[in-house]
């Protein structure tokens, strides 16, 4: 069976940016993978906050999308840990949750907050915004 990523590689331009998604629910993971890969991104998934922190340090993705309600380390603590570490501080974090916690996400250092349920357009729009600000920041640093 052809996977969504295989189909989309044929129709969408390869943007290459790596997105690490922290989501405990495999059904939601499947949906997010579909939409993000369709938009041309590379996507990695982890199901808990502790694994996410380790994976972020290892892979250094451009964007990390995290639910707040994930096991072992919640999404807000994960965000705080990433932003406190010079090695991962520049990873853009999008907190994506059912919980109305925009202020708490900002306090934890998140770059953006998006309330669920999953809306493909809103998700991609937010990811694109974060990537463009990240790229702008990198080019400013080079200059």
């Amino acid at each position, binding site marked *: 069976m052809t996977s969504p990523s295989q189909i989309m590689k044929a129709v969408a331009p390869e943007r290459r940016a790596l997105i690490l998604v922290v989501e405990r*629910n495999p059904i939601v993971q499947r949906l997010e993978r579909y939409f993000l890969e369709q938009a041309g991104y590379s996507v990695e998934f982890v199901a808990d906050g502790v694994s996410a922190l380790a994976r972020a340090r290892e892979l250094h993705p451009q964007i990390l999308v995290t639910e707040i*309600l994930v*096991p072992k380390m919640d999404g807000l*603590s994960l965000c705080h840990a990433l932003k406190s570490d010079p090695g991962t501080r520049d990873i853009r974090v999008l907190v994506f*949750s*059912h*919980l109305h916690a925009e*202020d708490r996400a900002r306090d934890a250092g998140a770059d953006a907050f998006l309330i669920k*349920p999953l809306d493909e357009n809103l998700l991609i729009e937010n990811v694109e915004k974060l990537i463009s600000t990240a790229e702008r920041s990198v080019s400013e640093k080079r200059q």
Partner: protein
Amino acid sequence: MTDKIKTGCAGLDEILFGGIPENTISVIMGAPGTGKTILAEQLAFSQATADAPALYFTTMSEPLEKFIMHGQSYSFFDASQVGVSVFYEDLGLMLRDDGIEKLPEIVTDVLAVRRPRFVFIDSFKALNELLVAPQVRRTVTFDLASVLTSYNCTSFLIGEYADGMMTELPEFAIADVVLQLIKLATNVREERFLRVEKSRASSSISGLHAFSITEDGLEVYPRLLTPYVSPDYTAKTERVNTGIKGLDEMVAEGFWRGSTTLVAGPPGAGKTIMALQFIGEGVLKGEPGVYLGFQENPTQLARVMRNLGLPVEKLLNDGFELMYQSPVEVQLDKVAGELFRRVRAGKVKRVVIDALGDVQRASIDRQRFANLIYALMQWFAVENVTCMLTYEMSNLFEVHGVSDEQISNMSDNVLLLRFQPGPELKRTLRIIKTRGSDHDNREREIRITADGVIIQDFQK
């Protein structure tokens, strides 16, 4: 004595005489949509603190996302406390990986990390359904109970259990408290009730207690009990003026303080006017009163009062309370509870319920209605609150019985209003009964005038 934890629901705490005993296991049971999860989350958010957190396990009845989405529509759900004092864990996903037999071990591991004071498993019944073999089911449930009892926490197992399951499922054997939520359909409405099915090592008020679900969560109205002091109270020996010209003279100098008078009659006979005069007279004499009505709203009643020459604004300022309830939406126990609280607070000296038929129609059965009215009357008597009840009779001219038999028997005094056919339609009043008092038992003509109802031929 065991310490108790509050439930976040004042009415339920009253029923449980203070709350749920600490370090116990409770089952919250009921059909889907009865309010089990709302009650559980209400309890979690109202009691949990960062030092004494709540751990809320979701399982396989609803995804965790739904708990969060629905929970946030209630005022008690403080999103800022999620992950601080209330922790949600998706037990369903954990069990998918490890298997249902590992339930006690998984719960133990999470308890060790979160160190909660309150544990919720919602739905536990959904987990139970995965335990097909009875021996395994009993062992797993027993082990889980051992974990929850050994650890210093108060636990709640929530589930869509039906009545018959109580004798079959092991969670009911390990439970110290069982709360059942019930939804009953009455004509076009649904009413919700709560019952304490089991309360080990702690007493509670028995029976069905009505509740409603509001934006603040569950609001429980404890069943009105008759006062414990009923046989010993001292009845007042003073008389109360009704403000109805001629009527007081027909009953010595008025009805006894603390008595209940039933005014029965057909529509248009003057019941509501008499009731308004009764409260108005009390307020003018410094006795605050509540008029509980189901037909006319406060604006309509104020107009009636003005037409009777009553000083509406002054009366409303001085303690005349118009308590209106739509007969369509009336929640009987809620209304009775509010009335009862006012009486117990000592702020009310006179009460009118206009009309009993509206209350009766709002009740799920006749006995519940009669019990509630009896309890209210007893409280009125003990608190020396004088009460007037109206009752609408359908027949304009012929009288075959005054109100519901039980209510007539309970009332101290019964007045019957009638129309007399003829070229001019006349209204009459007859005192059928006065308890502990003489009365004029002749049928008297009454007139409705700018001064209200007056007894035509019995005025000083």
